[in-house]
């Protein structure tokens, strides 16, 4: 067992590249995400309570719920962490002395390599499937409830909403372009089970994806993505999102030229962990909401 839920939430960073990136996406979901950090602070924010004895009771119940593996909260956290954990060390090391400064991307072109479109497509769709599976684990509905997930996407707010916004912008629009939805759908249709098996993220999470073999898991991935394309294109059109518009907002912390967008995608991939960061916040939020109702 790794860190406690208290440590995980207490140790969430208040600055750095992940936080800068998410803040720069605020224009898509204004005021939705305040980067809530700290376990006790999150209890106070979520519940509106400030009595120390009550906070203690809520915190203790949340800890018991999290540490009980049968409740699914740990699986959800593991999913958020796993889909994010590509070769992040590279970017982190390169950035160690850059935090707080504006980062010129050109200097990093030697150390990051853009992924081919197909790999990017598999990444995007796997992240989405991880969101669906984590949602089901956290909220207690069966793991193949695509319909329930799609219905509740419209209810997403706060850290969950900004995570999905980042997914669309950073893993969709920037690497794959304005028609990323149709590109991803045709990409996944042209992927065969053997190719999927070669993807390391898939290798890590395949046991929790519904389906008996790689082929039926691939179908599930395609179905999941297909069912949220309406929500995604709604988000894109409501905000007139284009790769250029997203990049101009990201330019508050990274200098990049328009013709280097695939490098920007690779750079953000290795240097941020927005899924894990906001996933931990989502998890803490839901745990605390349940704990306060049960005590």
């Amino acid at each position, binding site marked *: 067992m790794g860190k406690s839920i208290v440590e995980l939430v*207490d140790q969430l960073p208040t600055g750095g590249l992940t936080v800068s990136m998410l803040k720069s996406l605020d224009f898509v979901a204004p005021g939705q995400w305040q980067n809530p950090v700290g376990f006790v602070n999150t209890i106070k924010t979520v519940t509106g309570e400030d009595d120390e004895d009550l906070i203690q009771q809520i915190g203790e119940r949340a*800890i*018991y719920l999290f540490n009980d593996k049968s*409740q699914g909260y740990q699986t959800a956290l593991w999913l958020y962490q796993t889909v994010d954990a590509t070769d992040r060390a590279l970017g982190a090391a390169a950035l160690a002395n850059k935090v707080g400064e504006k980062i010129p991307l050109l200097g990093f072109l030697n150390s990051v390599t853009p992924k081919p479109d197909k790999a990017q497509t598999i990444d995007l769709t796997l992240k989405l499937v991880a969101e669906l599976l984590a949602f089901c684990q*956290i*909220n*207690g509905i069966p793991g193949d409830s695509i319909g329930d997930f799609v219905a509740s996407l419209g209810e997403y707010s706060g850290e969950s909403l900004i995570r999905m916004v980042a997914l669309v912008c950073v893993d969709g629009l920037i690497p794959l372009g304005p028609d990323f939805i149709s590109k991803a759908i045709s990409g996944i249709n042209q992927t065969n089970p053997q190719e999927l098996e070669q993807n390391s993220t898939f290798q890590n999470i395949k046991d929790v994806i519904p389906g008996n073999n790689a082929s039926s898991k691939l179908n599930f991935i395609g179905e999941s993505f297909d069912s949220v394309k309406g929500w995604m294109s709604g988000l894109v059109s409501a905000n007139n999102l284009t790769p250029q518009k997203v990049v101009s907002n990201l330019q508050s912390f990274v200098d990049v030229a328009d013709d280097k967008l695939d490098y920007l995608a690779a750079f953000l991939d290795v240097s941020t962990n927005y899924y894990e960061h906001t996933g931990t916040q989502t998890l803490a939020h839901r745990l605390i909401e349940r704990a306060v109702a049960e*005590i």
Partner: protein
Amino acid sequence: MILHRGRRVVAALLLSVMLLTTACAPTTPGRFDQAQKESTQQKRGQSVAKTATQGSEFNKFFPKASDGYQRVYTQEKKGFAEAKLKKGGKDIALLSISDTTSTPSAAAKFSNSTKKIGGYPAVEVGKTQTAILVGKYQVKALSRDPSFTASDRADWLENFNLDGLAKLK
């Protein structure tokens, strides 16, 4: 000379403030250490009783939304179900039913109750919650917006199908 001494006083003050705040800081994280230790020593399934009722059983007892409110189910786990109330796109309150078999202290707090809502013992918890005990089930209304007052909470609790819930085994 006087100026010099003044600076030293300020420096000494700053140093003591620093020492005080850093010395106090580590005590805060420790408050949950005991719960962390106890809950990791146990095996799977320790947080929810085996006999607890499935959350899906609870949904039909929740009050229907009306008066411009929207009811959205959020979590449904063994021994627990929760829905939020929204109005004008904003979260106003949470409604929940939980099985106190897993949390005996939750049921115990009603032994001091002097108030009743819908004929069942009721307590106010903290600033945002009203709870009633229906058999072994705790039903709560939790404000998420200041406009949702304690009397709103009592009203919504009465709108649950409480007698139906009381018959649930």
